[in-house]
Structure formats: structure tokens, C-alpha cells
């Protein structure tokens, strides 16, 4: 007998996501991915100065802060023909790289770990055993001391004793599928706290260049932060030295703490390499942080991340990397609360529409999945297919293209865990891919991007702004541009049209939209839904404690405010809502 289950709110994500499930005999049979927030930024950027838009669309997300700003700026630069100097591009690469590392660390420890780590059990952990466990899994993190583990155990014990569990209130601590021994839980909680402290530090690289985080500052045509080693008030030698330290610390934390922890948890939950497969199609335009103004297939901007080519993989065939073609992207609103003038069709981003047509129940409501429309999230398709984007897609693409470092790390991890490449398409595979990518990102930052920036600086290159296209009278009366950026959660593209100095059309195709979107006209599910219900084998032991589906959904690192589109409907009014 099928049972129905609603998980709303899905916590430890950005924004508002609701999952509805049907299960039978401990397995999930049907799933609906439902985005329950809409903000309407598409209307709001209409008619604005294109040089301001980054500040608006950056507020799509305070987790993915920087990435939307950079995508917006690159799209505008592509439209008006601005040519940011190399140092400005390298600064953006450093901002993207440091955010990528920080974002993955936060996701693993603070948004995902509690699905696998039992905080209550950590109080029973022997501090010395926790230190020994850390050593055994190859963690050389400096925080693995008896003193620290004792301190953390006492903290956890005092919270449990107080009866006020704070953020741990209501966790599924009695669930039978928490598998780590107490000492491992204790070590993980200690690293959870260390990572909280560490993310504060690693984000400072972006603060030097953008002035704040979240929501740092950017500039069409380059960067506002002047650099000159010999000036007090610009980014000078003191700050360059500081950045060098933070870059090194980031790499150290990822290597000595995050990667061993991720491998250890993946090893204990090894069956999750057979759970949570979504469509075996992958799309990426490069490694994390790759940035392209215009079509990635023809783009010639040098960045630090062009080690692999833009590409698409279908049906898990790693031997065939198809060339990427932006023209093959379409978005569907079959299951979303929008309507298209042309009916139930797919639209290219450059022609996108966002006309609200809410057909759902008036809140409070109990169930959405009985209707065809059930979400604010559109459903992007590539060449008609649902695809996965994100760390898994990038790692698979890099692996398929033989990127030496990725191949080395992935092969090592697969050997350690005893899994095959085909098993990467799974909940465990997404955890592993994120750790692999975090390591390569930290390495690229430390070994390529930052040293190149310093080398240029040494050679006297301090130019960070192209003033020639700043004034609107230097722009064509009509221009369009697009950008592609590989950001933490996957492939992000922004599309802009400018008329007479103002934005006339704007659209973003966002990683989480690719992943969280619902069914299309042909009934093809989005990756979230497919990962839960695709093969009917996803476990759900206790509907009152839906730990297993949370593990799978969290493995995607959902970012729901991003998922709801920013686009402009060529001046369409939001149509009246039936309620």
C-alpha cells in the first residue's frame, strides 16, 4: 500500500524546497520536487542601467554570492564589447575559486554531514579514540588533538544535559541507519566546528577584492579594487601576502581535513554509491570557475580553467564527449506555475518568458503532486534531455577528457572505496565528486591563479579596468550578450539584451534549475525526482524520519533562490493569479 510523505521544509539548503514522496515497502515509488518561493527579479531588472544589474541579480543568492554578479557582468561586457584586463579576470577567478572551496566545505560539514553524523553519539566518543580515528583515516588536520576532542565532547555533553538542543533539536538521532562509531562522530563534530571557523578565514580572499562577503562588489569592465604593491590604499603588498597565506591555508584544510573526512564517510556508507542515481547525462563548460563571455565553444578569453573543453555526456558513455552547443538549451514550464504564449513548448533562454500562472492551492495546503503544475522552478533540457550539472558533471567530464590530476584523484578514491566509474552517478558519487573538485580548485588557486596574478604584478601589470566602454554612449543602441560560468552547484548562464542603454531582456539559467525542475511534457523527471524515484530502489526506512531521501537531496546542494529564474519577459506584466 503506497504511503504519502511530505518533507517541507527541506532544511540545510538555501531557500525553500518541498519534496513530496510516495513509498511502498520501504522504497520510494514517486517523487515531486517543489520550489516554494518566487521573487520576481525578472521584472525588477527591467529598464535598469546594465552596469547596476550585477548588484540586483547577485541578491538571487547569498550563498552563491559573487557568481551571479560575475555572470551578469561578463554577459553585459559580452554585449557592449568591454574588455576587462587580464588582472581583473584573474581576480574574478580568485574570487570564484575561493568561493568554490569555501562553499563545498560549508556544504559538506554544515549542510550535509548531519545526515551521516550522529551528534548525540559524539558525547559517548572517547577523545583519544577520536584522535586515533582521525589518524587512521589519514587526517593530518592540526585540530586532531586530545585537548580539542575533549573540549568538543564536553560541549556536546553539556548541550545534551541542558535539554536545550539548539540547532540539533528534533534530529533523527534514534534512526537505525546512523552508522559511525562514537569516536568518528566526535571527530566529525569537531571538524564541523573547525570548518565553521575556517570558512570565515577562506572567504577573506574575496573580501580584499570585493570589500565584503556576502555580496561583494564588482564592476562592468573590470574590478573597482585598484592593485598596486606600492600604494597604501590599493590592494598592495601587505594584502597580496595575506592572500598567499589564505590560499595556502585553504589547500591545507581541504587536503588534511575535508578530503579524508569525505572519503571516510563515503566508505562507511558505501551502499550510497548504488543509491540516488539521476539521469546519466552530464553538462559542463569546464572545470570549476571556468568563465566564458559568449559561446564557450568559440570563446577565446584566457582563464586559469581551460584545462578541459566544454562538453556533454549522454547515457554514461564516458568515451564520447559531445561538443557543447548553447543553442540546444531550452526551458519548459509544463510543471511550473508559469505560462508561455506559445503553449506547452520549450523556449531558448534568449527568448524566455516568465508569466506567472499560479494554479496551485491557496495556502495552507496539504499536497501539490496531484496536479500537473506543482513548482516555481522551470525545467531546463539540453537537446531535449534532462542532464546533471555540478561537481559530479564536471568531474565526470574532466575524467572523460583525461585531465591528469582529476584522473589521479578519482582513480585513487575509486580504488580506496572499491567502486567503479559507473557508480559515480549516485548520492555517494556526488559527495565524492565535490571533495575531488574542492581539492583541484584549491590546487588551481594555489598553483596557477594566484601565482599568475603575482607574476603579472611583479611584471608591473596593475591595470584592472577597461574604461573605454563605461559610458552608455559608447555602446551600440542594441546589443545582446551571454556568459557561462561553472559555479559550485553547476553550469550558470546569464543572457542579456540592452536597448538604448537599458536592460530590455534578462535571463539566467541556473544550476539548481537544471537539477530541481519538475516533469516536462514527455513526463521526463528532473534530476532530483529521478534520483529519488527513478529506479524504484531508493530506501525509505521510516517515513517519520526520512533520513535517506534527505541524504540524496542534500547531495545536490540545493540552492532554491537561485533556481527560480531571473529573466525578463520582454515587458510582460505578471498576469492575474487565480486563487
Amino acid at each position: 500500500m503506497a504511503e504519502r510523505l511530505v518533507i517541507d521544509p527541506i532544511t540545510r539548503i538555501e531557500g525553500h524546497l518541498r519534496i513530496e514522496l510516495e513509498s511502498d515497502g520501504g522504497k520510494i515509488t514517486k517523487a515531486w520536487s517543489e520550489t516554494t518561493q518566487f521573487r520576481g527579479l525578472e521584472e525588477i531588472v527591467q529598464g535598469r542601467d546594465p552596469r547596476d544589474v550585477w548588484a540586483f541579480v547577485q541578491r538571487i543568492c547569498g550563498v552563491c554570492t559573487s557568481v551571479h554578479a560575475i555572470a551578469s557582468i561578463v554577459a553585459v561586457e559580452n554585449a557592449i564589447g568591454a574588455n576587462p584586463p587580464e588582472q581583473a579576470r584573474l581576480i574574478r577567478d580568485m574570487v570564484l575559486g575561493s568561493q568554490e572551496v569555501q562553499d563545498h566545505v560549508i556544504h559538506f560539514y554544515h549542510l550535509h554531514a548531519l545526515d551521516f553524523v550522529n551528534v548525540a553519539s559524539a558525547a559517548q566518543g572517547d577523545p583519544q579514540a577520536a584522535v586515533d580515528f582521525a589518524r587512521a583515516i589519514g587526517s593530518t588536520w592540526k585540530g586532531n588533538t586530545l585537548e580539542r576532542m575533549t573540549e568538543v565532547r564536553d560541549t556536546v555533553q553539556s548541550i545534551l544535559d541542558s535539554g536545550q538542543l539548539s540547532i540539533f533539536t528534533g534530529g533523527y538521532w534514534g534512526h537505525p541507519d546512523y552508522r559511525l562509531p562514537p569516536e568518528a562522530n566526535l571527530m566529525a563534530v569537531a571538524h564541523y566546528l573547525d570548518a565553521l571557523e575556517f570558512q570565515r578565514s577562506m572567504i577573506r580572499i574575496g573580501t580584499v577584492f570585493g570589500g565584503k562577503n556576502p555580496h561583494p562588489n564588482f564592476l562592468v569592465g573590470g574590478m573597482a579594487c585598484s592593485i598596486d604593491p606600492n600604494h597604501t590604499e590599493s590592494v598592495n603588498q601587505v594584502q597580496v601576502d595575506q592572500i598567499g597565506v589564505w590560499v595556502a591555508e585553504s589547500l591545507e584544510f581541504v587536503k588534511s581535513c575535508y578530503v579524508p573526512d569525505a572519503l571516510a564517510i563515503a566508505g562507511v556508507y558505501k551502499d550510497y554509491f548504488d543509491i540516488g542515481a539521476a539521469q546519466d547525462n552530464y553538462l559542463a563548460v569546464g572545470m570549476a570557475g571556468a568563465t566564458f563571455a559568449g559561446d564557450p565553444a568559440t570563446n577565446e578569453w584566457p582563464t586559469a580553467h581551460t584545462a578541459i573543453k566544454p562538453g556533454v555526456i549522454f547515457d554514461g558513455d564516458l568515451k564520447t564527449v559531445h561538443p557543447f552547443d548553447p543553442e540546444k538549451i531550452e526551458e519548459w514550464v509544463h510543471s511550473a506555475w508559469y505560462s508561455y504564449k506559445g503553449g506547452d513548448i520549450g523556449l531558448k533562454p534568449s527568448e524566455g518568458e516568465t508569466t506567472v500562472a499560479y494554479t496551485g492551492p491557496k495556502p495552507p495546503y496539504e499536497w501539490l503532486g496531484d496536479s500537473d503544475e506543482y513548482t516555481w522552478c522551470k525545467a531546463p533540457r539540453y537537446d531535449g534531455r534532462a542532464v546533471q550539472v555540478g561537481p559530479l558533471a564536471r568531474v565526470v567530464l574532466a575524467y572523460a577528457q583525461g585531465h591528469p590530476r582529476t584522473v589521479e584523484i578519482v582513480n585513487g578514491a575509486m580504488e580506496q572505496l572499491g567502486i567503479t566509474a559507473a557508480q559515480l552517478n549516485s548520492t555517494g558519487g556526488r559527495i565524492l565528486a565535490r571533495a575531488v573538485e574542492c581539492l583541484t580548485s584549491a590546487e588551481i588557486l594555489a598553483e596557477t591563479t594566484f601565482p599568475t596574478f603575482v607574476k603579472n604584478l611583479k611584471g608591473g601589470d596593475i591595470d584592472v579596468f577597461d574604461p573605454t566602454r563605461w559610458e552608455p554612449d559608447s555602446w551600440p543602441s542594441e546589443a545582446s550578450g551571454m556568459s557561462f560560468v561553472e559555479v559550485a552547484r553547476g553550469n550558470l548562464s546569464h543572457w542579456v539584451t540592452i536597448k538604448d542603454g537599458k536592460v530590455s531582456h534578462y535571463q539566467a539559467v541556473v544550476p539548481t534549475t537544471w537539477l530541481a525542475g519538475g516533469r516536462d511534457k514527455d513526463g521526463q523527471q528532473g534530476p532530483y525526482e529521478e534520483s529519488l524515484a527513478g529506479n524504484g530502489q531508493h530506501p525509505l526506512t521510516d517515513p517519520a524520519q526520512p533520513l535517506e531521501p534527505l541524504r540524496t537531496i542534500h547531495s545536490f546542494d540545493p540552492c532554491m533562490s537561485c533556481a527560480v529564474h531571473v529573466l525578463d519577459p520582454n515587458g510582460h506584466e505578471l498576469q492575474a493569479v487565480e486563487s
Partner: protein
Amino acid sequence: MAYKLDGWQDPTLGENLARAGISRRDFLAYCGVLAGIFAVGAGAKPARAEEIADALAAVRKPNVVWLQLQECTGCMESTLRSGGTTVEEVVLNLLSVNYNELVMAAAGDAANKALADTNAEDHILVVNGSIPTKDGGIYCTIGGESAEEVLRKSAEKATAILAVGACAVWGSVQASRPNPTGAVGVDEIIRDKPVINVAGCPPIGEVITATVSYILTHDALPKTDAEGRPLFAYEQRIHDSCPRRAHYDAGQYVRSFDDEGARAGWCLYEVGCKGPSTFSPCPIFQWNLHTSWPIGAGHPCIGCTEKDFFDRYTPFYQALPDVRGLGVEATATKIGWGLVGATVAGVGVHAGLTALRRSASRKADAAEPLAAFGDPGAGRQGGCGCAGGQDGNGGRDGKDGGCGCKGEPPPGGGLGAVGDRAASAAGGVDATRRNPTGGEGL
């Protein structure tokens, strides 16, 4: 490790005070003062000092509901980066944060239960995000309920309400023209209780956590300015403390990004800096462990602690007197730089009128003692006492306060103070001396 167990270690406030060396006698004396305040509070039952002391001494770690409504999570991310009172300290030691979507372990029904249980008792309410009011609240639902309903339920027994971030304060980016979802700030929905507005997009992490720790250490809400912003963080304009101010005074301006002036750290006014009209501690506290701040990194301030900044302060790269929404755009280029003063004065007067409307509803700051700790007499007297009709907002929604009370504005209320500030701000700008462009705007 930076985080350390301190502060609230013992089960109750009484025990914590004892550990901190506060004698029962001192505590009673303090409660006697409170008894006097409660006695004059409208509708509050007079209480004896001993009763108050006993009630307070039994208070446990304050429970907290930390909502995330229509927003981007930037405020919670900023909280994660706080370097003063760290988020570890907040969630493990100072407070029991029983509900917060970004960091809590529970999901779904278990999360909703944690929320309902906490809502059923006295608690501190922190809100990130705006409330979409159009079309029955369909634009943001949580657990199948509208954001507005979630907020109302959480506010019912809240003893202190903090609206954290521009979205919770006034709606921010989604409330900007044309505001498709009807987004509003918390104090447009919750009108019968004071709301502390921690402004900024996002606010500095330390300012968020300090607002919480202010309540805990003072047993009272912080003093606020006319916009409900805590004075400890929003008392001064960025311009007042800007390290580039000397260049402004000397007429040294960045003319184009990355020019010689930019590299030398000259004033960003001409490339659009909104620092002269923005009340924020950015130059003083700075960001991310005092690493830098927007103007420090060469970008003009976009005024993110100010109401409606996405509409009033755009285009962002236009110099201040020409910015729309400040009432001077028609003549700005003719009159020129002297208008900086007028602009600021205009903001001051605007704020002052708002203050008049709000100050009564917020009551004197001293009249909100111990609200955070759930004292039965504090913080929930209701009574808003708006000075009806004094809507100085004149703005976005044209709606009045709405409670309908006819209260007396307090003697020497916000208008005077803010007026003075505005006047001094206006006086601080000398058109002839600081007008290198001879009255031409950008």
C-alpha cells in the same frame, strides 16, 4: 580554536548571574527599578521586585526561532562569518536556536514540530527575509503555510523581534520596482510589538550577533534610530568615519575607476558613492574579520543599509545629487554640489517624521526590559500608540502605520535628534569649497 565556552554556562539566569558575581541584593535592586517601569506600563500588572527576580532567575537559555522567509540566505551566511560573538557561540552557548532552516538538523515534520514547540513558549524571534503579501501569499510557503502565517505564529509569543537584513526590514530587492510579489518588511505585518531593524544587505555579521548579545547582556532592546536600527551600529553615516573623507574635504576625487586617484585612495563620491547618505558602521567595523569594506576595496557605497536603496540609490554609479528619489533630480545639475547637504537634510527630515510615527509604538527603549528573557510583564503589553497621521514615509506604499492609536509623541523625540544630525550633516558640506567641477554633475 577561536570559539570557547563562556557566557551562559549554567542552567538559569539566576545561576549565571551568581557565577558572574552579581549578588541577589543587586539583582533585587535592579528588579525594583523594573517593577517601577512595569507599574507605569499601560495595562501591565504592577509587580514586586521579588516576584520579578524569582521569575527572571528561573529563565533558561533563551529559545530562538530564526526564520528565513523570502530571501537569499545572505544574512545567515553573514552571521556565519561573524568574528565577534561567533555563530558557534550563538547556537551552542548563548541561545537555543531551535529553528533555523539553514543550519538545523531536523527537516520536514520534525522541523515544524521544533518550530511549533518553540512558538508555544516565550522566545526571541529573528527574521531574515521579506513577506510576500500579494495573491494570498503563494510566493513563499513553508510547510504549506504562507510566510505571513509562519511569521504571525512565530511573533505571537515572541518577547523580542529582530528583523535582520534589508529584506526583513523593508523588502529589499524583491520589493523594488515594481515589487511583483508585494513583498514587505516585518514591521508592516507585526504592528503591535517593537521590531528592531538590523539593516543591511546583508548586515555585517558582527552587527547581527551583537544585536542578540546586546539583548542578552542589557536585558533590554538596544536603543534605535528613527528607522528602528540599533544606534550602536547605525548612529553615523559612512561619510562621517570614512578614511577617504580627507580627500573629499580636499577636493580629491576618483574620476574613473582605476585612475591615479583610485590607486591613491581618493574619494569615490563622483563615481557614485552613497556614503554621505548612508548610516552604517562599515568603515568602523569593516567586513569579514576586519579584512576590508566596500569603499576600502575601491567600490562606491551602494547604500545597502538604507530603505529602498535599490530604487532610491540607482543608478549606482551616478553621483549622489542626481540620484532619483531624493527629490532633487530636476535641478541637481543646475544647483550642483551644494545639494549634497540638502539631500542629506532631506533624508534626515524624512527619517525624523518616521521617527515621530514610530517612537511611540516602540515606546522608550527603557520600557522593553528583559523582554528577551520572557518576563511575563515585559514586551507584550501590546499598546502601540502611533502618532496617527504622521506618516513621513511618503513613499513606496503610502500606507499608514495602521494601528490607529493616538499616542503622544515623546518629549524631545526623534525629530529633534535626527534633525540636528541632518543639520550638522548639511553644514558639513560647503558647496563652494568642494565643488571642483563648478556645479556640473557627472
